[in-house]
């Protein structure tokens, strides 16, 4: 029978539970409850990172007393909506989820996100646990504007790697490629058009295809623009050689229709077991190893990006979170970012297969090392990629137009056009666009 004393003890324990949770999570000096009662809106891109943040949102609300309203929108539409809303000066959200490789410069130019350096330096607002020095150098560079303003905190680093079908490679005695030359030769060996087996798949769709070329360009030890962002390097011998590799592998070893493939078509083709290698971002791992979705769940291998003739590098695309300059609840928004990019949340993100963490401590976590969600090879590939990652797209304002113009050139190459001619034509077409953007 429930006695009165037992009932009172039980109910008082329940009432005290939230405070107890807060005490155990928060450090003794930092006040996570300083913005209690405020509400913030988060504008997220639809991706696994946003899923993880939403799954743990209640924990943040319990910790801080801040009410969170978050919405996910398809990536392309979210990027456009975010820029348009920010440009109006009255955005409907307080925290922006930014794809730095697309929107960094236009956001920096408009000064739409708050400079977070004063926040980081303020012990009232930044928990000692946050440990900003833990973020990798390339991720901080990606989040920093050319004038030194840090207007976002990195959330995820999407390293590019090579997924391969272990069974297919073993059947034809093809080794995991260490160079692009190996990759092309291996893909040719694996390709058997009569049986519908192809050695390679990669994005051919305009705009989406530029990051594939980007990895070949990095292997030539060069970038798309000069470090000052003013001169295009897209028709140099290195860029042309990279485009020739792209053309060769896509024409000779990829399935029919690849010219219209984005990552999702590549992923579904790869999961059917008729593709030898697929080059793309690490964030696409989970469905590949899920037996309900993939026919090759037990045979997926992970390899670091092969080396090019001049360098060994892989491209990285960084997502970040920023506080909207015009937000009325900037402190609350900053607390959210601090929580979402904290050590525990980024560990949660890696465990869920939402991508690679920009924090170095994530990869030193004993639990993760002991029991990596996708095996040791996956984790080793991730760690190796982190050491050789470079930005996969130029940091310029008209980056979407850059991807479109050069994306068309690449699709033409898949159709058989001469890479040198196409790249010169695209460079000439894009030059005035870049020059105009530099005039502001």
């Amino acid at each position, binding site marked *: 029978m429930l006695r009165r004393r037992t009932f009172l003890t039980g109910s008082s324990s329940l009432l005290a539970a939230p405070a107890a949770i807060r005490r155990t999570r928060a450090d003794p000096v930092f006040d996570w409850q300083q913005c209690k009662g405020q509400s913030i809106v988060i504008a997220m891109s639809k991706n696994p990172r946003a899923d993880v943040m939403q799954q743990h949102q209640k924990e943040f609300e319990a910790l801080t007393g801040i009410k969170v309203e978050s919405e996910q929108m398809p990536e392309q539409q979210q990027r456009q909506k975010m820029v348009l809303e920010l440009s109006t000066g009255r955005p409907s959200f307080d925290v922006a989820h930014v794809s730095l490789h697309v929107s960094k410069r*236009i956001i920096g130019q*408009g000064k739409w996100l708050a400079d977070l350096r004063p926040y980081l330096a303020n012990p009232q607002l930044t928990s000692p646990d946050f440990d900003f020095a833990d973020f990798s150098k390339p991720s901080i560079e990606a989040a920093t504007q050319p004038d030194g303003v840090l207007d976002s905190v990195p959330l995820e680093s999407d390293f590019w790697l090579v997924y391969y079908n272990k069974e297919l490679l073993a059947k034809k005695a093809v080794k995991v490629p260490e160079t692009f030359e190996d990759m092309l030769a291996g893909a040719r060996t694996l390709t058997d058009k009569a049986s519908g087996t192809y050695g390679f798949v990669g994005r051919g*769709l*305009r705009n989406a295809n530029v990051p594939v070329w980007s990895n070949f360009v990095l292997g030539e030890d060069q970038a798309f623009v000069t470090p000052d962002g003013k001169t295009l390097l897209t028709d140099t011998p290195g860029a042309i050689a990279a485009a020739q590799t792209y053309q060769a592998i896509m024409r000779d070893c990829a399935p029919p*229709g*690849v*010219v219209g493939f984005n990552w999702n*078509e590549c992923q579904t*083709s790869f999961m059917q077991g008729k593709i030898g290698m697929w080059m793309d971002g690490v964030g696409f791992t989970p469905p590949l190893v899920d037996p309900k979705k993939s026919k090759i769940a037990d045979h997926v291998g992970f390899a670091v990006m092969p080396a090019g003739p001049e360098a060994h590098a892989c491209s990285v695309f960084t997502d970040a979170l920023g506080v909207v300059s015009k937000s009325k609840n900037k402190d609350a928004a900053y607390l959210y970012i601090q929580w979402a990019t904290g050590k525990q949340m980024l560990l949660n993100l890696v465990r869920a297969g939402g991508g690679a963490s920009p924090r170095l401590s994530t990869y030193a976590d004993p639990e993760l090392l002991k029991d990596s969600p996708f095996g040791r090879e996956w984790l080793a590939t991730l760690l190796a990629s982190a050491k050789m990652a470079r930005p996969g797209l130029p940091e310029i304002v008209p980056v979407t137009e850059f991807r479109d113009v050069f994306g068309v050139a690449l699709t033409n190459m898949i*159709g058989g056009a001469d890479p040198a001619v196409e790249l010169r034509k695209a460079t000439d077409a894009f030059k005035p666009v870049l020059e105009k953007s530099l005039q502001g």
Partner: protein
Amino acid sequence: MPDGIDAPRETATRRKLSRRNYARSYWLFILPAGVVVAAVILFPWAFTLFMSLQDMHVGSAMSFAGLANYRRMLDDDRFLWAILRTLYFTSLSVFFPTIIGVAAAVCFNKHFPLRSLARTIFILPMMATPVAVALVWTMMFHPQLGVLNYLLTSAGLPPSTWVYDSATVIPTLVMVETWQWTPLVMLIVLGGLASLPADPYEAAQLDGANGWQCFRHITLPLVWPFILVALVLRAVDALKAFDTIFVISGGGPGTSSETLNLYLYQQAFAYYDIGFASAIVVVFFALIMLVTLLLMRRRSATS
């Protein structure tokens, strides 16, 4: 009441009434509608026209550009190709639904078992949400995993690359458009057929006319005004088609299915070049007006 006293008063009232300016008192009645029209039609148009004369990028200062945005169109290959593709796509997307729609209407005008059920099934595509339909088609078009290539190869035919090839992308998109919008043409023409008189047919049959002659010389001329209405609606719809193309091909491969709509969307929302995009909107509006007016004039001439 004696007439002599009342007559002058009545004349005076009539004079007063005839002097009253009705227009002055009635304009208040049209004011609400006028305000709405001005706010949602005239103002956006005037503002689009204004923006088309500016150098206006999101995040940058705006400056007057005169006709530079319009001049730029003449040198822009991508724009000129987009116009040609729009006309190509539109003409095919009007032609096929019209032919099939008229044929279907003639069939459904006859009496046969389960006619109502067949009609309902025929108009189902029109009721589906275009974006959802487009996503389903995209899956079916996949060159290796799509059901369409499975069906083709099962029938001993070579597989197609559908929307994954520059040469086949527009005909494939037209196929989707035809599948979805033929029912609309059918419904309009069927309405026309239902209203036709029976006498000319009886007279023709007495004169020994066969089925084709009845169709060619009686049905078609009588139903022609309805077909023209369907043509106008279809042409306007096809000219402004966006959702299915955007979802299925995104304007690709390369730019091979990039119509004017998709191009201006890219300019406005991907490149944030609002001035140039507004100029394209103005030209696009003129193009739609031109096509519509030509068809309307043809309809008036027929009437």
